[in-house]
């Protein structure tokens, strides 16, 4: 079980109020460092309202990373949308790709947090996953 690769998709409410760019930069920096070591790949999406993140990796690594992430006070209402074994990594080149400020992402994803009133349960993990994947080509290299 622990060696199987898993994919996790979650959304959360952004609680960062100031110096957002700086904070996100910090999150990406530490994520890339930690994730590379833990054999985790994935992507992070961000807009004013919420975060969406995909993590891929061994079960125990995802578990440990997710424990840290969700205790992070910079966000809340962390809702898991998808957690399942995967056949092949989609984000294999990214320790943590960032697709936050892309116009395309904003268009497809920007409304999500507000529309759902941060009740993410009704959202589809696969849809979020696909939005992230679709915007990967614009992502800055990790």
């Amino acid at each position, binding site marked *: *079980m622990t060696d*199987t690769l*898993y994919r*996790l998709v*979650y959304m959360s409410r952004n609680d960062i109020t100031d110096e957002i760019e700086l904070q996100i930069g910090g999150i990406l920096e530490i994520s890339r460092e930690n994730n590379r070591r833990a054999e985790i790949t994935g992507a992070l999406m961000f807009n004013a309202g919420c975060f969406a993140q995909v993590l891929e990796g061994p*079960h125990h690594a*995802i*578990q440990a990373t*997710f*424990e840290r992430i*969700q*205790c992070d006070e910079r966000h809340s209402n*962390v*809702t*898991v949308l998808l*957690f*399942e*074994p995967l056949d092949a990594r989609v984000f294999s080149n990214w320790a943590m790709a960032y697709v936050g400020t892309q116009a395309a992402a904003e268009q497809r994803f920007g409304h999500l947090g507000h529309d759902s009133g941060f009740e993410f349960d009704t959202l589809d993990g696969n849809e979020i996953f696909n939005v992230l994947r679709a915007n990967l080509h614009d992502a800055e290299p990790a």
Partner: protein
Amino acid sequence: MSMIDSVTELEALATGIAIIDGDNVITYANTTFARRLNIEVLPRRLTDITLPEARSRDLLEWQLRDIGESALTIEIAPGRTLTFYIGARRDDQRMVIVASGWPRREESTLDLAAQLDPLTGFGNRLMYAERLRELEATGARCAAVLVIDLDHFKQVNDTLGHGAGDELLVLVAQRIRASTRGNDTLIRLGGDEFVILIPEEKRREGLEALAARLVNLLGRPFLVNGHQINIGASIGIATLVGDSEQLQDLLRHADLALYEAKHQGRAGHYVFQSQLEQRAFDRRAFEVDLRRALGLRQFTLHYQPQTSIRDERVIGFEALIRWEHPTRGRVSPLNFIPLAEEIGEIASIGRWVIRKACEQAMTWRDERLIVAVNVSPAQFVDDTIIDVVRDALAHSGLAPARLELEITEGLFLDESEAIMRRLWAIQELGVAIAIDDFGTGYASLGYLNSFPFSKIKIDKSFIQAEPSPRASALVSGILAMGSNLGMATTAEGIETAEQYHQLEQEGCSSAQGYYIARPMPADQIADFLDQFAPPTAQAG
């Protein structure tokens, strides 16, 4: 390290001293330490030292998981024990001191291993008792205890297995550890109950803030064994700066507060107040009375008629339990049924009700009349309910088709296959099953499709709601759904002619409520049937 200034002094000590980093790798060891543990080269993990028993290494590992200060005595060679004093972790560093012939104080237990919970690395009951003794010896004035109980943990164990349950407990322990301070004592009392013993917290607000943080953290999702798990936690708090006077009372008081927290709806915390003791006392007295009630024949059944709206005739009666207590007077089922469920008394009370209802229905002269009996979800936890129904039918000789069990949506909250199996088994006996209080539960409607229920009983709150487009839309919706699914609909709690006629127009099948008749004792049924005049006749 400020107490020992120079490295030479350290080297000369007869006590072994080492510094370890966050991964338990020894970064410095004085010669005594190296000699005592046979270490030749550094860096090396402290847990990689040679020990005669694997169990000793496990103990050391568990102990090191605790970032607070602790001590552990283990055997490092046959017949030779060594005590490890492990300092609190600071900036990813901690000091480890080893000495033999310690602990010196008689009262501290030689075998710290016996005080540890192997799963989480927390202490167990013994450690709690030991720490309490220490606090007592130092005359602690502001100690506090938090008792944390996980909601829905049993379901995790039942559905995903004990392995998943254990993994979850480890993650829970980690979250608790991350929220507490080094000098707090963390205890797992067993099962899913955790205790935090805080030696010093002068402010009640501080404790409440900690409890709120823990409730929040433990309410967040866990990833275990390939599953996402959501549990929650309830917390009881007792503190010497609050209503608890003695250290010995803290755990008991925190437990009482926990009980209160759970009863106020889960996922919250509650601080012990002295009146909880009185409340617990009253509850115990009530419990004792309830346990005796059956034996003392204090229960009776009353019957409320159900009529067919179209045929204007009585189709049966719902049996309603009454408890008449010599000093308490008439106690409402709303008060005693939840307690009966909690203390397990519901099984015998429920059996009595089914048996009695079947017996009394046999005395009714119209053999078409059905008798409806309420059953609690607590009666469905095992297969007993099937035998209870079968026995009641056999014992009374009642035709199975005349018995109807009324269950509530609450039964489907945890969509268990076992529950469906039991329902089917009862259905196979020829007994009908109706949904009671429809519309008040939180269950998804999917269950309606999975079983041929005989009836949907619309909760009285819908019937008695202030007339509004919204209220009537809800009722019409339920009635339409019933007819689409081929299930009869009964409206409960009808009190006025308006309500009755409205339901009649909308095609509701049957009616129950004060407008037709109040519940009556069994011996008034014959007269009632003789004199029954249909509501339309009354109105017209």
